[in-house]
């Protein structure tokens, strides 16, 4: 007789599940050396954003790069030009949810830029460099194979109604001895 014939059966199934997730909003100020004779900044645009997520132990890190394009005027506003500079970054993302029950070697991480890098302001600092304030936000997810213990119902689906247990997982065995709340409740008058 196989053990599957007796009583309640359980089975371990292996499935892919989200085993960790986190969100990170960050603000960065880049200091960029402009060309000579800069008069004013006319605009700033961030393009070519590329990124990738990696796992470092129980935490995650998003690494990436983008180009900061600054449009400025020179020589007392007689000429304009666009400068381009690529910057790299890495952002650690703390996980708000993490389940360590993942089969070794199966975890993959994914990141989504819920807010791609966006220039909030670009100004010329006192020492002549250009300060570019950038905001971005990522959502990261760790997906891995994990074991799930499930109850197996015998027969076909028709039996389900009887077999499904109550969802009341009360573990404490309530035994009030002489204390019946029905008797007590109305006498409490503080």
């Amino acid at each position, binding site marked *: 007789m196989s053990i599957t014939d007796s009583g309640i059966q359980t089975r371990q199934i292996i499935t892919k599940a989200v085993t960790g997730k986190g969100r990170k909003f960050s603000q960065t100020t880049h200091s960029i050396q402009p060309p000579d004779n800069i008069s004013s900044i*006319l605009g*700033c645009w961030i393009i070519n954003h590329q990124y990738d997520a990696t796992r470092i132990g129980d935490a995650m890190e998003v690494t990436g790069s983008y180009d900061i394009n600054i449009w400025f005027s020179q020589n007392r506003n007689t000429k304009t030009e666009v400068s381009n500079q690529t910057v790299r970054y890495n952002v650690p993302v703390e996980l708000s949810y993490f389940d360590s029950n993942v089969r070794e070697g199966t975890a993959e991480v994914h990141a989504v830029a819920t807010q791609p890098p966006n220039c*909030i302001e670009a100004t010329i600092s006192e020492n002549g460099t250009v300060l570019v304030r950038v*905001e971005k936000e990522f959502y990261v997810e760790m997906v891995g194979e994990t074991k799930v213990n499930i109850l197996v119902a015998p027969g076909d689906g028709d039996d389900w109604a009887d077999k499904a247990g109550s969802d009341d997982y*009360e573990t404490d065995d309530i035994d009030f001895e002489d204390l019946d*709340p029905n008797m007590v409740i109305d006498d*409490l008058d*503080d």
Partner: protein
Amino acid sequence: MESYDLIFDTTANSRDVSDQVVTPEQTLAPSIHLEGTPSSIATPMRVLNDEKAVANTTSREKMCECLAVHGIKTTDKSNYLKQYLICIFQTHVLLTYRTRSRKAWLARGQKNASNQVIRVASEEQGREVRRVRTLAIRALYALGLDYGLVRVAVQEGNQLAIMDVNPAPKLNKEMESAYIQAVREYVCQIPHAAVDLKRVTLGADPEFMMRHSNGRLVMASKYFPRRGRVGCDAIWHGQNRMKKPLVELRPEPTTDPRELVIRLYRGMMMATRRVSESNIQWLAGALPHHQFPLGGHIHFSGITLNFKLLRALDHYLALPMVLVEDRRGIGRRPKYGFLGDFRPQFHGGFEYRTLPSWLISPTLSKGVLAAGQLIAARYPELTATDLVDVSVQKAYYEGQKEELQDRAVRLWEELTLLPEYKTYKNYLDSLASYLFSGTTWDESKDFRISWKLPPYRR
């Protein structure tokens, strides 16, 4: 302020309603009065956008002042990254629009880039959209309105702020049909809004915390699971999210307030077995520890949620409770405990989150749950509109007991006139004598003493 009359007729079609509440300038009527409703229906239920509330929005200064009282940030028009326009009718977001976020930053003077708005699908449930919608509903409620167009700015650092609230917006085609539909649904709901007490199912998840005699917090997560009849609340302490300081009682819902209290009591009994150390104090109230405000959330189902119901709960429960609260609890507001704080629930009902943890006293617990059911069942017959006045809102947030005393007495008297009051007369009379006794609860006192729970059992 111009108000429009709408003939009460549950069979009216869109055209009829539209003819009565849309102005010739194609704007929504700033205020609507329903004419010819059944006589038992009190004024608040018959008026959409009370004129006094509409008057609060006519000057920007007044509007910002009112929103500030409720802890809602406002901003002028210059510095935002994105703008949302939210069409709201009471607790429902009818339509959402937003401007495209600017791709490039341009130097000052050239900021007025495209202000073109696009519609956001109602299915879109992204985090930002959800936050914006919740804030917009909260702002509309705070101003005492029932419908309107709320403009929300997304500022740098993911900060949200209210730019403007318009109770009589200019309507495009889809806005018009959405608002007309909402008004019709509201009208149809009126005849069935008042129900028998037993139609209202009550649940609750009041919180408490535990403190060691040496003054340190005791982590609930050390004794209780995350889920369960007694569990720990999702809020965490410090860096480690596993450390959860708040205990939450989660009794099964029932239509009988007394039974709910019995279930809460059972939960507390169970908790006393898990935590038996005698040098641990159990604390409830609003703010027994400065970092962790406590809530006494009540869940309602079996009734339709609308602003009128929330306002009745604010008037007849939240206001009187200020009289007995420990002054140390005022700091809970306005971040928590703000007026009309609700959250829709998976069970189809909603959770009223304004009250502090009433577990502090059995009289209060019994009375609050009984009163909650009474108000939820009979709110269409209740007349209070005190909170439309900003000074009364202020008195609530600042805990000015003297200011609220007479009003609370008057409001309570009105409750006693409801025929259903008799059903819970014991609990409600006891609650009233507690509320108006001039005493206040003491949040530093172990509430097991009042509940006669071990080790304080006789």
